[in-house]
């Protein structure tokens, strides 16, 4: 009875939520060896928001990201992604959820044997759209400034270019949710900025939600919201300004994005 009531209370806002996490606990290991890594997390990410997840290493950021990406099975609590409850879903359904999510990894994980375009086309093939896959791949690579590297294999691309190919692969199907783990860690300042700007435009134009784990202070300015995770607990959840204030403890009341672009 209580549960039904609670659900009806959330119903109006639910359509606007890309990710909704309620009372989530997560453990590694089993039995006596089990260790809790996430404690009672409740979090709502509205559509179109760019959310940065920070925190010291080992705080459970990546675990939270993989849970939201339907890459791990839920243990306790509730997790809704793009309107779909993940608890109790089978492997097949989880795979279907993943197809609507763009993943950007720290390592590029490109097939060395395939060209940049083919690597991106692998993602397009999932939609069954074989006729225009090449055009879509080329368009996406061009948007990331790789129009002259379309038919290069990863071994003849620089680290930044490889990462941009990986990002093109994640974005080519226009996912509604993008999960990124340190996407700029391997990039120089300019490429990192380009990638972040691109994610920013995508979220503004297509209303897609970005959840990004990063330690890179240079890109904090694009965030609508910054969540700090410490030892598996939500420490703070604040807007950019509030976050900066709390960190700097300065008299600054407002801050410009420029100060993060170093």
């Amino acid at each position: 009875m209580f549960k039904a009531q609670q659900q009806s209370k959330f119903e109006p806002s639910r359509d606007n939520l890309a990710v909704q996490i309620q009372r989530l606990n997560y453990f590694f290991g089993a039995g006596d060896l089990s260790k809790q890594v996430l404690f009672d997390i409740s979090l709502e990410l509205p559509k179109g928001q760019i959310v940065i997840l920070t925190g010291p290493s080992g705080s459970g950021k990546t675990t939270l990201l993989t849970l939201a990406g339907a890459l791990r099975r839920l243990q306790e609590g509730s997790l809704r992604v793009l309107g779909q409850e993940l608890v109790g879903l089978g492997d097949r359904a989880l795979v279907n959820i993943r197809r609507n999510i763009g993943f950007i990894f720290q390592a590029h994980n490109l097939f060395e044997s395939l060209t940049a375009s083919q690597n991106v086309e692998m993602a397009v093939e999932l939609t069954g759209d074989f006729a225009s896959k090449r055009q879509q791949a080329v368009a996406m690579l061009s948007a990331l400034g790789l129009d002259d590297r379309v038919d290069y294999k990863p071994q003849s691309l620089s680290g930044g270019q490889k990462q941009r190919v990986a990002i093109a692969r994640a974005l080519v199907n226009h996912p509604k949710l993008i999960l990124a783990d340190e996407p700029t860690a391997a990039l120089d300042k300019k490429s990192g900025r380009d990638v972040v700007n691109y994610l920013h435009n995508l979220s503004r134009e297509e209303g897609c939600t970005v959840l990004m784990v990063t330690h890179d202070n240079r890109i904090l300015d694009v965030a609508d919201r910054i969540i700090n995770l410490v030892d598996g607990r939500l420490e703070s959840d604040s807007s950019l300004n509030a976050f900066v204030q709390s960190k700097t403890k300065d008299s600054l009341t407002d801050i410009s994005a420029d100060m993060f672009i170093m």
Partner: protein
Amino acid sequence: MARISVAWANLMHERTRLMVAISGVAFAVILIFMNLGFMGALISTATNFYEQFNADLFLISPETLEISTSTAFPRERLYQIAGVDGVERTMPLYSEYLLWRNPETGVSRAIFAYGFNPNDPAFLMPELQEENARHILSRPDTVFMDRFSRPEFGPQDIGTTTEADRRRAIIGGTYFLGGGFAADGTLIMSDQNFVRYLAPRPLNLINVGLVKLNPGISPDKVAETMRSLLPADVDVYTKPGIIQHDSEYWLESTSIGFIFSMGVVVSFVVGAVIVYQILFTDIRDHLPEYATMKAMGYRSKYLFKIVLQEAILLAVLGYVPGLVAALGLYHLTTKATAGTLPVAMNGGRVIFVLSLTLLMCCLSGLISVRKAVTADPAEIF
């Protein structure tokens, strides 16, 4: 546009590894072909003397294992079927081992002797077709000697005199036949001489009944008719039938079949291990990519297909050079043994080894694919 073939691209990307894999498969294919080739050649040498018998149908006792281990049966059986439609003539053939004494060393050795009526055209060897040969064979204590007999039997020159089973024997002529597996050498003599050497053997018990049919008559049909006429103490075989009967004996009741089948199995395992190693290394190197594909929404089934495709590609790419090399080695073996080991390829073996190669590669693929399927996308973050 077609789906991107990740399997093909992965194989082509690592050229060195691809060459090693192809060589491995080709090596296994060659070994399998050589084992089957030797087995086939040995079996055919064990039975190819039947080609020199001038008969379309063969009557033997059901107790006969192969030509040299035969049980005699009554000659009346030949008379019973002599009147069947299509039969041109029937010819009795006697056979038994004799002790042949080497005139130079004095050592006696078992030689396989055929006895037949010199007036019957029982053999196809050209040396026995001459008019003169019939007269020589009709002489007492005169035999024809097989030129393929082992040298331990002594000189094979015409006119050589020695002893067989303590009776004088004169070589009156020679021919080329070969004794297969059972006999180190053969003799051919008239039925009259045969009973002299092997007394008290009666002529009304024969070892093989040879039946010559009129041209254009189907041996299978006549054999069917004969089986319905004859009692159970005699079996009727066509020429391919009796060759198969003897081959099966050598394959199944002796160690020959086992030895070479073992060779095939070992080659198969060697090939499977090589392919497994290659595929496993390939999967291990691409594990982050496979895991990424799973994160993107590819199912395990797709990864499964990639690995299986790689396995099948390796099988085909390795089989073709293996087949070509095996053909070369077959030719070389036949030449090196001066034709006594006729290693020859046949269509059935080409297809059999291809299936075996595909099976070998797919099996390795299935064992190594587990690693790709269990790739955990959560691990790569």
